[in-house]
């Protein structure tokens, strides 16, 4: 039957069904699940739209590299940064990307521990998104250095200078946190894909794909004994990744929290950053999932019910984050700290551009998600898509504010200054989107975007004997 029709029936059925079953694709067998997902990769049915978007992404990516070349040739001076405001777009984008990178591991790790079945439909996508987002994030700390070619001085390696990194600096913590996060996420992602690689290996017709996926599968043969250890290792990884997710953004937040600057010197930052990260992460997953499910006709795997549950999380995290704002403002107000008070006043009714950005941010991050109280909107893709894009934009602006306002209005009025982005600031940020788009599209094309083995495990009859008893 036509996919459209199948969706209809599927969705009708799902809305009726309750409990975990609503997240199980209806009318699927082991074979059909395998067939459908594997064919997305092995089938040669790449349509035009994919190429169009890839082309667009590539253009951005090329521009990104051009910008980087110019940056290396001239120096960070091409950006708008100056002496009071030594960090801006680069670090903003860094924090933003890292935040996006959080949903992936959260969905795959924490939800595993919580036995949330619905994660199966989106965890692969989310994990991939994590990997690429962290890659984008990683470029910025390198680029923002005055002398990027010496970045490796931040790594502890024996050298002729007989020097080590200065481990009290939050920037060194970043290096460890982000690289750990990247490698663990990558491993987690890959491990999850091993059985699916085996499937692809076994289904592939052409020799070269057999070889490629065979290599990736590492000779996985679905042995029950292997599954046993695999499950255990996967569970442990999930258990380790969970505190990791929390720690990473806490460390990133300490880039600001350990400083003296008014508005940075805040103990609320770590949890507040993590919440913001989850918010932007989930927004990104939704923003990606909605177009994908249509384009690849996998509405039955990523059903509206999936979107709805993510919408709920979006709403919740938006509350966490907003709580961060308000507590910040409140605590400052109650502390009576001269400098902090001035900064926060400046954020609210502030100098030139800042106040405006603040209010836009609040609308995007706090007001917009309020729509999701209404079930109709939670189940309405268009609304959901718009909200999550707004949230993404809002989160970027929030980081921007947080970084600039403090620096531009700190202790000595004599050295107060303003940050104003140059065209290079903007191009650098936009370029990083290109990197993300390209890498993500390649993922969709060459890797199974939904975990087949787990999906099979969800199907009715997957544990028939137990129901039998």
């Amino acid at each position, binding site marked *: 039957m036509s996919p459209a029709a199948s969706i209809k029936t599927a969705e009708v059925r799902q809305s009726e069904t309750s409990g975990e079953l609503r997240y199980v694709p209806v009318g699927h067998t082991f074979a059909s699940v395998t067939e459908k997902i594997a064919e997305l990769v092995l089938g040669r049915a790449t349509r035009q739209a994919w190429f169009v978007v890839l082309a667009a992404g590539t253009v951005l990516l090329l521009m990104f590299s051009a910008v980087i070349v110019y940056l290396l040739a001239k120096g960070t001076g091409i950006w*708008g940064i100056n002496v009071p405001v030594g960090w801006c777009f680069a670090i903003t984008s860094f924090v933003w990307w890292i935040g996006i990178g959080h949903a992936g591991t959260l969905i795959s790790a924490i939800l595993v521990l919580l036995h949330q079945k619905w994660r199966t439909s989106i965890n692969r996508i989310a994990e991939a998104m994590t990997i690429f987002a962290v890659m984008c994030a990683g470029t910025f700390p390198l680029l*923002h250095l005055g*002398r990027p070619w010496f970045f490796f001085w931040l790594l502890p390696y024996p050298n002729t200078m007989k020097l080590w990194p200065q481990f009290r600096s939050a920037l060194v913590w970043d290096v460890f946190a982000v690289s750990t996060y990247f490698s663990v996420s990558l491993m987690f992602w890959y491990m999850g894909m091993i059985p699916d690689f085996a499937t692809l290996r076994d289904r592939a017709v052409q020799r070269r794909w057999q070889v490629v996926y065979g290599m990736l599968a590492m000779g996985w043969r679905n042995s029950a004994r292997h599954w046993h250890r695999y499950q255990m290792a996967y569970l442990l990884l999930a258990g380790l990744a969970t505190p990791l997710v929390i720690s990473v953004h806490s460390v990133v937040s300490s880039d600001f929290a*350990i400083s*003296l600057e008014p508005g940075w010197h805040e103990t609320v930052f770590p949890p507040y950053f993590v919440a913001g990260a989850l918010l932007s992460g989930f927004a990104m997953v939704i923003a990606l999932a909605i177009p994908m499910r249509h384009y690849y006709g996998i509405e039955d795997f990523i059903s509206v019910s999936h979107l709805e549950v993510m919408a709920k999380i979006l709403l919740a995290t938006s509350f966490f984050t907003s709580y961060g704002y308000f507590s910040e403002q409140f605590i400052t107000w109650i502390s009576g700290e001269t400098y902090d008070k001035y900064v926060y006043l400046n954020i609210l009714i502030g100098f030139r551009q800042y106040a405006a950005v603040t209010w836009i941010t609040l609308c995007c991050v706090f007001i917009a998600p309020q729509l999701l109280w209404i079930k109709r909107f939670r189940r309405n893709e268009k609304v959901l898509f718009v909200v999550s894009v707004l949230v993404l934009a809002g989160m970027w602006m929030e980081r921007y504010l947080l970084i600039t306002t403090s620096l531009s209005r700190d*202790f000595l009025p004599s050295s*107060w*200054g*303003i940050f104003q982005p140059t065209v290079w600031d903007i191009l650098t940020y936009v370029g990083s989107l290109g990197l993300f788009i390209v890498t993500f599209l390649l993922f969709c094309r060459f890797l199974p975007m939904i975990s087949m083995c787990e999906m099979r495990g969800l199907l009715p009859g997957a544990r028939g004997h137990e129901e039998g008893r």
Partner: protein
Amino acid sequence: MSRKDLATDLAELEQALQGTSGRQYWRSLDELAGTAAFQKLMRREFPQQADVWPDSLSRRHFLTLMGASLALAGLSGCSVKPAPMGKIVPYVQPPREIVAGEPLFFATAQPLPGGAVGLLVESHMGRPTKIEGNPDHPASGGATSIYHQASILTLYDPDRSQTVTYQGRTRAWTEALATLRTGLEKERDNGGAAVRILSEPILSPSLARQRERLLKSLPKAKWHVYEPLLQDARLEAMRLAFGQNLDCHYAFNKADVVLSLDADFLGSEPGNLRWIADFMSRRRIRTPASDSTQASMNRLYCIETEVTCTGAKADHRLAVRVQDIEGLARAIASKLGVSTAGSSGSAGPHEKWVAAVAKDLEAHRGRVLVLAGNRQPVAVHLLAHAINQHLGNVGQTVFYSRPVTEGPSPRIESLRELADDMRQDRVRLLIVLDANPVYSAPADIKFMDALERVPLRVHLGLYQDETARRCHWHLNEAHFLETWGDARAFDGTATLMQPLIEPLYRGRSAIELVAFLATLQETPGEELVRSRWRDHWNQQTRGPKTDDAFDAFWKTSLHDGVVAGTGFPIRNVALENDWQRHLEPQASASGASSRPGDESFELAFAPDPTVFDGSFANNGWLQECPKPSTTLTWDNAALMSPDTARQLGVELGEYAHGGEHGGFKMPVVELKVEDRSVLAPAWIVPGHADHSITVHFGYGRESAGRVGGQRDQKVGFNAYAMRTSSQPWFVPNVRVTKTDRTHLLACTQQHNLMENRDLVRSASLEKFRQKPDFASEPEKQKEIDETRRAPAPLEFYPPLEPPASTPKWGMVIDLTTCVGCKACVVACQAENNIPVVGKQQVAAGREMHWIRVDRYVGGTAEAPAEFHFQPVPCMHCERAPCEYVCPVEATVHSAEGLNDMVYNRCVGTRFCSNNCSYKVRRFNFFHYADFETGSLRLQYNPDVTVRSRGVMEKCSYCVQRIRHAQIDADREERPIADGEVVTACQAACPAGAIAFGDLSNSASEAAKWRSSPLNYALLEELGTRPRTTYLAAVRNPNPELEGG
């Protein structure tokens, strides 16, 4: 222009030189000067546009191109292979005094309008790199001003004219002199009636001597003198008051009460270095105890228009239009019982103020000092003299002596006369020495048109300036550090100037040129100066007049930097009986109408605080030095009060990248007087007098150089264009209209208020006596209010104390005495190889100064009560916020408590700068340092690293000087003595406002200052434990005026 082309051209030239040998080589150069290749190259040296990245670094890119232009100074520079001829002498036996790496100091002096200042020039292996003041010199006392500090850059300025030119084409000195010879020989028979010389006021006895010789050989020739900062009123007043031309000297150290009538004696007036020192010697408050300094803290009343350093330091300041000051002066005089014929003046709304001042002056008879500023009309000067005499200050605080300048007195008539002669074709040969009247002459004299009529015009100067471009011949002058010469200080004391380096471009001095004009043969400068002083010595000395004895005298004079006993004797003079007659309003030189309540706008002129009269326009250090009261850089502006701005509808425009720490696109106003008008960007200055608009001279140059402005890329606007000889300093009833054009003004601090933070702490003398701990009080209060601010809880970690043995370096800055002159800023720039970044980068908030002078106004911006200057170098915090955030150990704490920057370890994360509470760190956002320009390379201090791109930098407490002292001390196996280490800013400071030393040694000056109850640390509550602390500002207001 790519280096490659340059290389080929040079090759071409070298070819032309091949096969020449010995001294022909130099002759062939002269011949060569005519060749096409050379001309091409010389033109190519000054490209109108260059291939630069489109990001505002073009000026710096130009600078890099200049490297080549130096190579042409005597083509030897551009030959890559060993010189083709002659013997090269190896450096086997170095001169005895030179030790590699050890700088030498030579005494000399820099002539500036009003008198020379004695200097000690630091020379590294034969190249002068840094200038200090000469402690033995009366005008310096060891201090320097920004001009002296910056003169070293002028010496190496690649834009300096490097060759003789005839109508723009390069020629040789030989040709130029030949032309002059024939020209003069023609004039000789009629006694040189058609010969004119135009020079600046003559400070050099030797030049005066040559002038006499010249006028002897050409009796009918005329010598004219012109200086842009006209002082006709002062001179006229002298003539009227005393019947002769005199110079006035002040003993500020003896004055209890000082009344300044528009006299910026702490700022732009000549002799200010000495005056600052004397004045501040009465303000060194340390303890509340009524000890001698305490009892006799002086008091300064100031009536002025714009905010000058003097006004900022005044205990009571009155801001009125320049033209209204005469009225107030008359009022004060009449209150004191000095007869003021004509109008007795009216204080208008300031009745109370005037009365109080008069009372205070009266109360301190004989220990009072009244000065009138250059800009004031004759009447005010007369009144100042009269009041001083009336109160018996003459002989106590005021002295008179013969003027330091010799030759004709520098009046505008002198220039007008010359112009008229030229217009009537009475001049066939004009020789301009060092002056630039084409640029700076008052508009009504129309000097340029007149000049064009002279058949042979010769110009001697450092630059191819406006006048040079309109003369047939331009002769490149030698910089004062390159030549023999002499100059008198403001009190007449003469200093012998000795060359620190061979003339870079084989220039000649004015003395040498005039000597040639007189004798038609070349005599080396040294000989001329020597003979002048030989005669002087012959008259003076009692003993045998042997050559050896003279040599001894010569050597000591050179060594000391002063010729003993050349100061002028005091003259006892009394006012002419009929002096009041000249007080009649019509006698006052200006047509100023000072009716009270008159609201018309006035245009006031002033020399620029940094580029002065324009002669320093091409000096990057001075262009980038923020002007004391406005913090503007790279521009002059129409300065106006907030009220006036409101009336004109002027307000802060769209901000540039840096915002208040960068710049604003300011509306341009049109200033119109009669048919003259200029377009000037407006700038709002809290404390400026209402209904008055101040514009600074020195900008809008048409051919100053690539830094100071050229025809196609001017810097600022030319205020001289608005000036007439009848109204040289202020023009009433100027029409001001706001245009819709805007202009970017780059400033380093637009935010004037302290936002209720105790950044600068100040109190009146009374309050200090009652509450000696007022400075440290805020901390105590805060600790009571917010316990978390108390030092104890701040210590999260156990303290890490440095070993007690090492010295604990620290700095204390006295806010009472700092006059905000910025000498420290430029001195630091010279000492530490700090790059010039250009207007666009300053506007982006990226200037590189290691020490900055913050300025705040007390009260509101509309009606400021106080003005504060606060120099801010690195605080060298013991709990430095910058250090623990650096990921690569590029900034660490030394055992001596220095916050060290390790440039070659820095990767440029800028975290340290973000986390610096004082924002004293500076980042090389681009490749600011100039590694290419040969001449500028010569200036670099070899003891200080030149920083490259992407690296953070900041004040190092002049660590190189500390190490130097350390090494000396170690060699002599003794501890470093107090005062042995003097930082560059401290050395330059004329007010002695900076103390630096070992805090662990309680005897050290710094430790003593620090123990004063006035001592406080900036942002102490943050627990950064700064090593740099401040002494709170103490003022001495008149109780009667307090609160009024």
